């Protein structure tokens, strides 16, 4: 501090030399982190941006500079529009379901003493399982004629529902599977948040008249879980945006495009049709969506959250 306040004119050559060494050392320490950032994030992003402005096709010998044509094409493409709407719909189901459901389970599990770890393991299992393997199980469970779910529905008198091959139910079914996979992880995060709330506060609230569960939840639990909820919300949203594996394995975008989602289209364009330049432009749009959503949520909610 004193060095910074002193005037440069008064510096002796040794002081100046020490300042220079300090600066070089500081940059030296920052270099490895910066190099990693450059190599793993900034450089690939730059390549992606450059590719998106060309008509490069994978394996092609030459390519042309096409400017923003890829982006114009993407925004006009009805398939891309549909996949965007489908993705947003999927996010709109998975985020509330995955966050509120996990919160509910966490609150219920938190009160258990002896059985708590049992429930934790059970709800966390889907997170540890490979979704592609589990997708086969889901496919069997939901099968219109062989699956036990439809067996139960039939027994209840509700006709068989072709969950995955009916355009009106396919996306919602995938969303339910998405929630099933996410909920355990979110529950663990909420449980950590719940454990961090001091017991004193609940006791004080009990004496102050917060006797019902709703009062305790609204007065203490919900506000103090703010930071956790914020984190869970943003990560769940990003995960939901990245829906790909269930679509690729179970529906391939069908029936009649009802489960076409953004990432699946990028995959098709880039790896099936080898339109690398176009896929790069789509990836850019995808990244922009995630960025905007996360930023809006963070700035809108940050003010309401008590840390």
């Amino acid at each position, binding site marked *: 501090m004193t060095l910074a306040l002193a005037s440069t004119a008064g510096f002796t050559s040794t002081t100046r030399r020490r300042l220079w060494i300090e600066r070089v050392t500081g940059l030296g320490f920052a270099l490895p982190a910066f190099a990693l950032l450059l190599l793993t994030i900034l450089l690939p992003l730059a390549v992606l941006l450059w590719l998106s402005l060309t008509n490069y096709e994978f394996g092609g010998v030459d390519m042309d500079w096409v400017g923003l044509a890829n982006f114009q094409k993407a925004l006009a493409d009805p398939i891309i529009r549909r996949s965007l709407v489908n993705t947003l719909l999927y996010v709109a189901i998975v985020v509330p379901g995955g966050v509120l459901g996990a919160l509910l389970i966490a609150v219920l599990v938190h009160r258990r003493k002896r059985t708590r770890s049992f429930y934790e393991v059970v709800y966390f299992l889907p997170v540890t399982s490979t979704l592609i393997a589990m997708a086969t199980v889901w496919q069997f469970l939901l099968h219109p004629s062989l699956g036990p779910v439809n067996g139960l529905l039939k027994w209840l008198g509700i006709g068989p529902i072709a969950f995955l091959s009916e355009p009106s139910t396919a996306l919602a079914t995938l969303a339910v599977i998405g929630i099933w996979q996410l909920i355990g992880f979110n529950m663990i995060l909420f449980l950590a948040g719940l454990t961090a709330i001091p017991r004193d506060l609940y006791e*004080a609230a009990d004496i102050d008249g*917060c006797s019902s569960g709703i009062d305790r939840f609204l007065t203490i639990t919900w506000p103090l879980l703010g930071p956790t909820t914020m984190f869970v919300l943003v990560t769940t949203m990003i995960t939901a945006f990245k829906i790909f594996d269930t679509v690729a394995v179970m529906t391939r975008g069908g029936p009649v495009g009802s489960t076409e989602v953004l990432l699946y289209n990028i995959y098709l364009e880039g790896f099936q049709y080898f339109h690398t330049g176009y896929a790069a432009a789509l990836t850019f749009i995808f990244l922009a969506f995630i960025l905007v959503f996360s930023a809006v949520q963070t700035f809108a909610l940050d003010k309401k959250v008590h840390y």
Partner: protein
Amino acid sequence: MAKVALSSIAKSFGPTKVLGGVDLDIADGEFLTLVGPSGCGKSTLIRIIAGLEHQNAGSVAIGGSSVDHLRPHERRVAMVFQSYALYPHMSVGANIALPLTMSRLKLWQRLPLLRQLSAQRRSVMRGIEADVEAVAAQLQLDHLLARKPAQLSGGQRQRVALGRAMVRNPDVFLMDEPLSNLDAKLRVHMRTELAELHKRLGATFIYVTHDQVEAMTMSDRVAMMDSGAVLQLGTPSQLYEKPASLKVAQFIGSPTINLLPAATAAGGRLELFGRPLALAVPLAQGEAVALGIRSEALSLVQGEPGGNGRAWFSARLRRKENLGSEYILHFDLAGRDAAGVTMRATPAAAAGVNEAAEVTLGFDETAAHIFAADGERIEPRGQGAATGSVVPLRA
């Protein structure tokens, strides 16, 4: 305003017995302190009174009627926690207002969105605000109402916790080590403030502390607890001047009471370090007893020791502690199988003792507290019971 009556309260956590049948009657408007070492059950007892914990047996009555079936907020008690337990996401004003919003607004009037529909809500909230401001003014918190607890100092948080307790006008204030998290200077200051608050409000205060100084300075009566039982209940001076047992004597008073090993000779006559005393107790010959002597009861003996009902022994100075207005002198009992003793001395008297110097310490035998081997207090036998004159202990 209410009296509190506890009858044979027992509590165990699993196999651990915490309270074993505690009976306690606390008068209306009294300041009663539960004091004792950690783990003695005092906090559990106050939590049972608050309704945060349920007793396994016994009954709590507040204002003459049993409250065992009532939830904490229905018992008309308020509690101040050691950690203050302020709601960190609420402003000071909202913290203090919470008990009132809970009791004066219906559930639907408190729910987000729905509450906008209530016509009365606004007028009720105005009443609550006025009450909060009145309490805040009493505690000099009026300029802090908009702050969050994290922006307050320890002493201010403590006052917010008090405000939240006061705003409901409870019959009974329960305080669980409320000053433990404050620094030493503030603690002394808050002691006075709490005592004055008690006088001003006239409510019943039940105060838990492990600090005997707090117990001595603020209370009308003190209940000294250990191992889940009340060892002695009385005014601070009763506990200090006539401790019922060795544990009470050792806990109350600072520095800790000096204990000298004595034994009974023929006729129950006491002997200290082989020298006979004028004291006699109703015990058989050869029993070991402990003589408790407060540090202020000891004095340096110049010239010929003994005589006139005064006992003496020799000791060697180990250390002087300067407290400014007085000194605490620590002595070793040279070559004796006993812990050292401490003595209060004026600076002038302390100046006369040199380090490692051998001195003679004396005390008035009537000032000695006698404890049997089981820790119970024994009153010395009255005049004529033994030879020599025994002056009865002052009451």
